[in-house]
């Protein structure tokens, strides 16, 4: 059940330049699924719209969620000042996550680019929780050798890394790292910039492997009423019967073949 509440900040750390890791105490941690997101609200009364942030990790026993986000403007910069004990308004859990059921017993490749990496940690952990022997590979692309979440990912999967500047791992895009890894996936989950998702979709199609991608768009309501965060779809969408699906509620995770990334 979605709800809006005031959450307590458990802790916050800066884990790379402009990248922060925020643990929140929330009532809905048990229900939150990998690939879902929350809306965070600023304390600044002039910046009213929520900021959608994907869930990076959940601690269901302690009732906590971890959000890893990048400072993208004044709103997220405000979040980065939060300290343990502070309060923040949050709505969640929102959206449709990754279909973890499909991953059980398969060789799974998780592809994350930049700030699309955090939800891949939640996916890797969710798969491991259900299937401790799962063969999970994470291919992650960074701008440079800051490698946020690398240790967390390494604990639950095999990790291959690319950097734009070649300062660590494969010099190039995350798809270069995928090809370097000799991965032979039976299922792909991915999150990252559109140009990356386009390459992932193409790769999956060539390999004939089912692929699910997590989309990003500016949002207002976060719950499917305003139609602000649409993405172009290849077929007639269920809600409006045009070719535009709602990222917030029909997604953010879609079967790759259903999204028109051109």
């Amino acid at each position, binding site marked *: *059940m*979605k*709800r*809006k509440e005031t959450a307590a900040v458990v802790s916050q750390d800066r884990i790379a330049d402009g990248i922060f890791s925020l643990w929140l105490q929330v009532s809905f941690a048990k229900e939150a699924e990998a690939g879902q997101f929350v809306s965070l*609200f600023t304390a600044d*009364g*002039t*910046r*009213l*719209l*929520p900021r959608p942030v994907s869930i990076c990790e959940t601690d269901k026993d302690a009732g906590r969620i971890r959000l890893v986000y990048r400072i993208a403007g004044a*709103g997220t910069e405000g979040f980065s000042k939060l300290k343990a004990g502070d309060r923040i308004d949050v709505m969640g859990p929102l959206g449709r996550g990754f279909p973890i059921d499909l991953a059980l017993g398969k060789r799974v490749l998780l592809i994350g680019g930049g700030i699309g990496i955090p939800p891949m940690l939640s996916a890797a952990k969710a798969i491991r929780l259900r299937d401790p022997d799962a063969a999970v590979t994470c291919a992650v692309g960074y701008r440079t050798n800051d490698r946020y979440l690398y240790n967390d990912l390494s604990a639950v999967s095999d990790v291959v890394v690319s950097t734009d500047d070649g300062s660590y791992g494969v010099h190039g895009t995350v798809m270069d790292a995928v090809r370097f890894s000799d991965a032979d996936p039976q299922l792909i989950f991915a999150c990252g910039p559109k140009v990356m998702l386009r390459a992932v979709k193409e790769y999956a199609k060539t390999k004939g492997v089912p692929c699910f991608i997590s989309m990003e*768009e*500016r*949002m*207002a*309501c*976060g*719950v*499917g*009423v*305003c*139609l*602000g*965060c*649409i*993405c*172009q779809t290849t077929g007639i969408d269920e*809600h*409006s*019967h*045009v*070719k*535009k699906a709602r990222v917030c*509620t029909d997604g953010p995770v879609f079967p790759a073949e259903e999204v028109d990334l051109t």
Partner: protein
Amino acid sequence: MTDVNMQVVIAGVTLKNPVITSSGTYGAGREYSEFIDLSRLGAVTAKGIADVPWEGNPAPRIAEVSGGMLNCIGLQNPGVDVFLERDLPFLREAGCGVIVNVVGHEPDEYYRVVDRLNGVQGIDLLEINISCPNVKAGGLALGTDPAVVEEVTRNCKRYASQPCIMKLTPNVTDIRAIAAACEAGGADAISLINSITGMKIDIERQTFALSNRTGGLSGPCVKPVAVRMVYEAARTVSIPVIGMGGIMTADDAVEFMLAGASAVSIGMANFIDPYVPLKVIDGLRDYCIRHGIASVSELTGAVHA
């Protein structure tokens, strides 16, 4: 003091309280029913419905501005057939008043929808959105020309079995002339304001923040404009006025009612806090108790110099 009478009557339709949710901010009620009990609301206004599905505009459709937002959704909607089959059955069971918002690119499209809704059970009121860009008028909203407004109102009334609320665009020089044209055309009520046309430029990328370049401004930043226009319109016509534009709190709602609104509508605030409509209902009641007012409708137009 005994409990406050929260009922209001709009065009012969009794609402249990004067708090409505605005078209385009509430779907057809289903999504927010996860958060609140819709039966507590005066009414839900369903998102604008056209005769056929509308694609709307490309992304980005949303931009934040200080104290509000711009949108260029472009009235994406599944069309009247899907609405009647899928959305209305849910809404009419929700226990609140039901208002159906109607959109069109040109007058005939409005009439087709209104005609289709004629006699449909479970619709209390129609709201005719005359702020849509009119294709035949070169994209100008038909709601900006009093003569056209009067004609469209008269024709909608001809096809409609339900009372008609005309929803006014604020993008006009004199809102009083438009309000008067609605009344002359036989409108049962008017609602205002729709969003104000605005623009945001992304200075880093040196381009427009919205795909459509312009978008509709809404949120608390428009409230003083909306209160002024509700006041002017309410002084001009004798039909009920539904006031909206940036209402975030019960105090805001009281302000609109004092300015002349018979009911109020909550829009962008739903996105920020789905519980706002209920807080406004409770706050309106508290205000009446505090001021010794027996019936919330006494607030309508009660502002004095």
